[in-house]
């Protein structure tokens, strides 16, 4: 089976992480034998809590470790750097059932990491082939699209709330992505909207109402796996996934 990559992006605070987590849960339940890689590419690092999976290390920890080994002269040649990146990458992958979790982390040190980033990108691209599905919870805004971190994906999921600003952000992302991202399909999820709100968008996947059950779930510190199957978030994510795979639009 060819790896299908879902990337979630949009304005901050619109529910990208919750939706990514819901997609991951639904994929893991629907395709029990499939291997799923969940990538937390948001420096806010929320997907870990949403899934209830705690990684021992983030990719940024690895990046720092490799940068230090270069400075100390312990590694230098391309083959050594690649081997070093592969060595540490396995420690970054936390597993739970058929889900593997990988967090990019929060870059805190100054300096140029271009060389290290290039090796890490190569390694991540290399491991993607081990999975049937890769779900990326992206950073808010267009930075990761601009920097071509999200370059080759299957589905670009634009998440917005009902605000004009949210819709403007996904409009900008869409324009930039058309130029820089190789993508099979793009779709929009409008999240956390008042009842009766029905935006007109050509590639609408789902409209999800304000979800009190999910908010309570978050307040209790419970993962997406504790969420009821009739909650608006779960139902909306399921509808969006179905529409994305079947090329239909839907309102929940």
């Amino acid at each position: 089976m060819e790896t299908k990559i879902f990337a979630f992006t949009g304005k901050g605070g619109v529910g990208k992480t919750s939706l990514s987590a819901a997609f991951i849960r639904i994929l893991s339940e629907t395709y029990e034998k499939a291997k799923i890689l969940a990538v937390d590419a948001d420096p806010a690092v929320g997907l870990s809590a949403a899934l209830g999976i705690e990684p021992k290390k983030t990719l940024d920890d690895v990046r720092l470790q490799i940068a230090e080994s270069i400075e100390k002269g312990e590694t230098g040649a391309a083959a050594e750097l690649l081997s070093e990146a592969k060595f540490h990458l396995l420690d970054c992958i936390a597993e739970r059932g058929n889900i593997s979790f990988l967090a990019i982390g929060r870059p805190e040190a100054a300096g140029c990491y271009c060389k290290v980033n290039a090796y890490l990108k190569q390694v991540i691209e290399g491991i993607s082939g081990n999975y049937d599905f890769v779900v990326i919870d992206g950073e808010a805004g267009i930075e990761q699209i601009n920097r071509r971190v999200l370059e080759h994906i299957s589905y670009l999921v634009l998440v917005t709330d009902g605000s004009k600003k949210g819709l403007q952000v996904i409009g900008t992302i869409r324009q930039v992505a058309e130029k820089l991202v190789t993508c099979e399909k793009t779709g929009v999820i409008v999240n956390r909207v008042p009842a009766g709100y029905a935006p007109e968008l050509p590639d609408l996947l789902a409209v999800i109402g304000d979800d009190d059950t999910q908010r309570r779930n978050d307040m209790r510190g419970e993962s997406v796996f504790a969420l009821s199957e009739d909650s608006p978030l779960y139902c909306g994510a399921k509808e969006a996934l179905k529409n994305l795979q079947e090329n239909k639009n839907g309102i929940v």
Partner: protein
Amino acid sequence: MELYNNVGRQIRALLPYAPAKRAPYDAAACAPEGEKDRILFGSDTAYELGGGGKQSAEAVLFADLPEEQSETLLYGPDLSEISSDVPFGHITVVKMKESEDAALSSERLKTIGFTVFQLYPEGYHIRISPAACREQVRVAKAALQKKPPLSFLNVGNSLIKAFLRHPDVIAVQTAFITDPAVDYKALSVLSGKTKKITDAVQSTLQLDELDCASCKMKPLCDEIDGLRELHFRKEGKR
């Protein structure tokens, strides 16, 4: 290469007198080849050699071997006799053709040493940290359930085969160490020293400095027998 003789002797002194298994290279008994970049997931792993915070050491030495016959040695239990994470050592000695051109020869050392990074036996997921001189291996449950199960001798044959593809390599002796009585901490220190020698050979040959008093390599030359001679031999040939 004489440079590695001292560290080679020190490593040998850490190992039991006789290996538990010793087998000449057999190209027909290699481990089945797996896919590059294939991850062995935790749920499919029986145990990890050098994993779970256990000690681990990996080194490639370029030195003379008493015979030109390549072989695999095993000190300690074999893969099918291990049931949980254990400390692990993997030391490989490579005998190379003598070269007149020291600089060219040093360049080849690194390239040939990288062979260990490009081995993908099925059900035997190797990962190497060159910075820490560590080698950890996830061993698949499925590989141990096969009849006969995957063994270190299979993996050793695969590694030797890969090394022998380099035209400058004459023979290879690869030793896997799982004996719990071995001092892995000391082995790790010696692995670091081995890497330091390989790195130093290259750095020394790239240097044009002839005054030892002001040379940045002096501490290393003082520590590694033969390094200074190698540098001046190259300068003398110019």
